[in-house]
């Protein structure tokens, strides 16, 4: 039996409707959420995603500024911009896109006003998140939890395995699953016995950035598989999960594209709504 597909696009659309309604309510109180996206022009800048975010903001009534600094901008330029945005009352949330190597990304993140840290990446927000006192939760993990909720499966006591231990995805999604009383394992590139571990997972979240590294033989029959990877291979977008073989074994699977991806932008805006409160 083929896995059921978790339709991230459809779930994200529903969420957008809810966000639109929330924004309208804020506007009645003369409050408009405002997002600033900061990027430095470079191959990692993901300009197209910034444009997508801007369009989505426009469609739900959120004010959005995209600040694209030229490729020669240095640390001081980025910091000055962040300071300016921290002080700008129109801006309620700041989203920093991946930075080129010559910029110290951590220093930039430290400089964001934690109250405007819609990404949930400032150490104060990360720390509060870990100890269970939440303000902002990194939005990709939050989107993943929404996708899991949509399947209706009970997480309590289940085995969840996270492949990948990044601070934006792997770690926070693991701690969110822990909070829902799953038994959580973090695996990564150095893990021995990876297959032994993934084969036990009732919930498998793969965020390793290696195209199609998880194959059908590594998945427990009936498992829920969330594929966070987006890898460009031969002009095609593929996930970290080999779709064809895994969909024969898993109970549920997110497609790439159309799974986790569409959720992240929606959850970013959802976090921004929280910021405005």
């Amino acid at each position: 039996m083929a896995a059921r597909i978790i339709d991230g696009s459809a779930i994200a659309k529903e969420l957008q409707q809810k966000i639109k309604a929330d924004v309208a309510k804020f506007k009645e109180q003369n409050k408009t959420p405002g997002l600033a996206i900061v990027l430095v022009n470079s191959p990692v800048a993901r300009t197209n995603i910034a444009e997508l975010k801007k369009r989505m903001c426009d469609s739900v009534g959120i004010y959005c500024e995209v600040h694209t600094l030229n490729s020669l901008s240095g640390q001081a330029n980025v910091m000055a911009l962040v300071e300016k945005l921290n002080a700008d009352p129109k801006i309620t949330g700041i989203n920093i896109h991946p930075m080129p190597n010559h910029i110290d990304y951590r220093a930039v993140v430290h400089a964001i006003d934690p109250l405007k840290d819609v990404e949930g990446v400032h150490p104060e927000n990360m720390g509060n998140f870990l100890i269970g006192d939440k303000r902002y939760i990194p939005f990709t993990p939050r989107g993943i939890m929404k996708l899991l909720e949509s399947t209706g499966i009970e997480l309590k006591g289940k085995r969840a395995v996270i492949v990948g231990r990044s601070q934006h995805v792997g770690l926070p999604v693991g701690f969110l699953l822990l909070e829902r009383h799953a038994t959580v394992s973090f695996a990564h590139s150095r893990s021995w016995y990876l297959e032994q571990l993934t084969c036990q997972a009732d919930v498998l979240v793969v965020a390793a950035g290696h195209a199609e590294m998880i194959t059908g033989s590594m998945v427990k029959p009936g498992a829920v598989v969330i594929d966070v990877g987006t890898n460009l291979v031969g002009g095609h977008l593929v996930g970290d999960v080999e779709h064809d073989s895994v969909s024969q074994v898993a109970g549920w699977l997110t497609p790439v594209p159309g799974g986790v991806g569409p959720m992240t932008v929606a959850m970013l805006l959802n976090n921004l709504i929280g910021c405005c409160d």
Partner: protein
Amino acid sequence: MMSAKLIKGPEVAAAIRDQIAVDLASLKEKTGKVPGLAVILLGEDPASKAYVGNKEKTSKALGFYSVVHRIPAETTQEELLKMIDDLNNDEDIHGILVQLPLPDHIHEKAVIDAIAVEKDVDGFHPINVGNLMIGDDCYIPCTPHGCMKMLEYIGYDLKGKNAVVVGRSNIVGKPVALLLLQQHATVTICHSRTADLAAVCREADVLVVAVGRAEMVNGDWIKPGAVVIDVGINRVDDKLVGDVHFESAKEKASYITPVPGGVGPMTITMLMLNTLESFRRKHNLK
């Protein structure tokens, strides 16, 4: 039948204290100053009093500047926050510790959040916790830090190994899991809701138990040759026992920490290490 080697807390702690003494002497020579640790104790809880007494004794023995504020349980939150603020601004103090638990009328989080991040030698401030999570400079909470030092002491290489942490508390389970992960172990966090806990424990090359249930983990749950770190301290019939059933576990493990005499004695030493580190950072000395 093999019998596990013991990882003795007092022995590991003594080795670290020797190093602290050496480092302190050289820092004192360079700066003319010593690290200062301030401890605040509210009320008369006997266990808390004993802990604070030990901290004071160790501070002094190592040549740290030690201040202990023993204040009444009725102290208001406002008064306590004022005291913390004064210590935050005190040039001679490099570490501040408020002994927990606090009386009910005081909001614990407000108190922890009020401690200056650079003086939070307990490692409980959210910015420290966040920095621990993202692998940035931070003060590592004392008990998890002690566990890691014990693994370091036996020269254990965690890379690629299966580490299982039983217990998911903010002060032990979660931070120790992050630290194990930073050393490239594969880390599983278990808890009271885990289905078939015994089976998960049996996968562990390194097993860290911090749940506070006397002798819950027995020898059958332990993979032969595993390293077992027992963080629990439970009083049973006037005897202290860990979360691990020591007698059966030591027949399976290659190394095990005893209770008492295991992780417990490490904690205060780690506090001193963090205070020394704070002093170094303040004076830009590595």
